């Protein structure tokens, strides 16, 4: 579904990603893991169009993505739940969700989608007229994910969902993400918590210093000695 072919990405003069190729097959739950600053978030930012690769291509269903502006990427069916959530702080929970359904395709299904999201995250329903910034960390994350879903995505990218959240809440949220994946949305998430990531994902790519050093089925990587030592602590 999404093919990244040998991209190099720079922040100004500083190279962040070297020769990265990866593919996200439809329906899968893919994870990008690795240490801080290894380049995982950069990949997501490049897919969505905030950054342009200096070399290489990105294709979605065969169509070039790397030369498109962000809003076009979103229209094609990719959404990003960014690091730090990117909620609109001047707006209420409901308004944030409504903003999520901005593109024409999503606007038609707006009320249906909002109903569904309130079913999945009942807490949001209770707080729907509250300003987004008054929500707790976990609730904000739920709102960010809900808002992402409003655009009727085929591929959902998530950047560091667990950041700043208590383990229990993180588990709940990832349960929901798993449900989302089961309902047909392809998921690709960046996660620092490698244990959690490898438990949930079907495929994984391991990043180090801006390159992919290992990849494959999550099941297999869980058992990989090198991965265990570096990221999983004592098994």
């Amino acid at each position, binding site marked *: 579904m999404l093919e990244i072919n040998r991209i190099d990405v720079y922040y100004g003069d500083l190279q962040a990603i070297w020769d990265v190729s990866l593919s996200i097959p439809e329906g899968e739950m893919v994870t990008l893991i690795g240490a801080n600053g290894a380049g995982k978030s950069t990949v997501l930012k490049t897919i969505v169009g905030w950054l342009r690769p200096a070399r290489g291509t990105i294709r979605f269903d065969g169509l070039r993505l790397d030369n498109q*502006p*962000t*809003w076009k990427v979103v229209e094609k069916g990719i*959404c990003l739940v960014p690091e730090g959530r990117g909620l609109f702080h*001047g707006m209420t929970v409901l308004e944030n969700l409504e*903003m*999520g359904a*901005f*593109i024409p395709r999503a606007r038609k299904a707006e009320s249906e989608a909002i109903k569904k999201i309130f079913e999945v995250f009942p807490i949001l329903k209770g707080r729907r007229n509250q*300003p987004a910034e008054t929500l707790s960390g976990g609730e904000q994350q739920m709102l960010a994910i809900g808002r992402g879903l409003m655009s009727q995505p085929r591929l959902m990218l998530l950047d560091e969902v667990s950041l700043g959240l208590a383990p229990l809440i993180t588990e709940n949220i990832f349960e929901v993400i798993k449900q989302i994946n089961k309902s047909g949305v392809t998921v690709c998430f960046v996660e620092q918590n490698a244990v959690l990531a490898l438990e949930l994902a079907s495929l994984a790519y391991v990043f180090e210093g801006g390159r992919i050093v290992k990849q494959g089925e999550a099941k297999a990587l869980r058992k990989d000695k090198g991965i265990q030592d570096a990221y999983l602590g004592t098994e």
Partner: protein
Amino acid sequence: MTPDFVAQILAYGIIMGALYGLASVGFTLVFGVMRVLNVAHGAFMMIGGYLSFWGFTLYHIDPFVSLLLVGPSLFLIGLIFYIVQVFPVIKFTDDHDKINTSLLISFGLSVVLENVALLLWTGDIRSITGTYTENVFEIFKIRIPLVGIVGIGLAVLFVFALYLFLIKTRFGKSIRATAADWKAASLMGINTNRVYLISFALGVALAGIAGTLICVIHSIDPYIGLFWTLKGMIIITVAGVGNIRGVLACGLLLGIVESLSVFIAGASYREVAGLIILVIVLMVKPKGLFTTKVRGV
């Protein structure tokens, strides 16, 4: 020093205040959405005023009718200037750089515009005087010019039209989202470049409309640019960034305060009052007096 006199000054202050508010709405829109300090805002007002002046003296177009022409013309001019003035700046991701550079660019452009106006219209003070500009109403012994009332009415009209546009329409919401967080807005499928372009052009169009009103109610010359830009800066500083209704309120407030200062200290210190307020507010509450919650509008 009779109450009538005070009331008269206040009435005049309210009229000017409404103009200040209208003049500043476009300024705050541009700054709120793209953090661009359009120092040339006053210059665009001046151009708008001159265009309606031309329309009136050359083709006898009623100034209030010419608003229909001035608005779109300045919108177009805004589109052009966006490319020159804002485009090179948008690529900066650092807000501080953005503001500094846009400050400088718009300052340079305002100087150019000012001197082009000087070239085209000479330095004489211009004003539009027509059949009804001399009409004055007397209410409770206060003399209020007809155009003053129309001016207040139009100012309130335009400000609220903008407000409704931003709150109710889809595009307006996309403007607010972009102003709040442009990256998140892009993730909603919003074409942020188009938002910037339209917002800027809209801001310039509003400036032009304000300029027309000023030409009728007051007067214009090539040097008013700085005067009005300063007023705009004072008002958005006091009202807080992006606060549309607050801008109108603060405009009125400023008009009233200035009038009172005339009452207290004499006419020549009118400008000083506003400037001192600006500095005090900057030091005490840099985010603005009216921003308790950053609601965005």
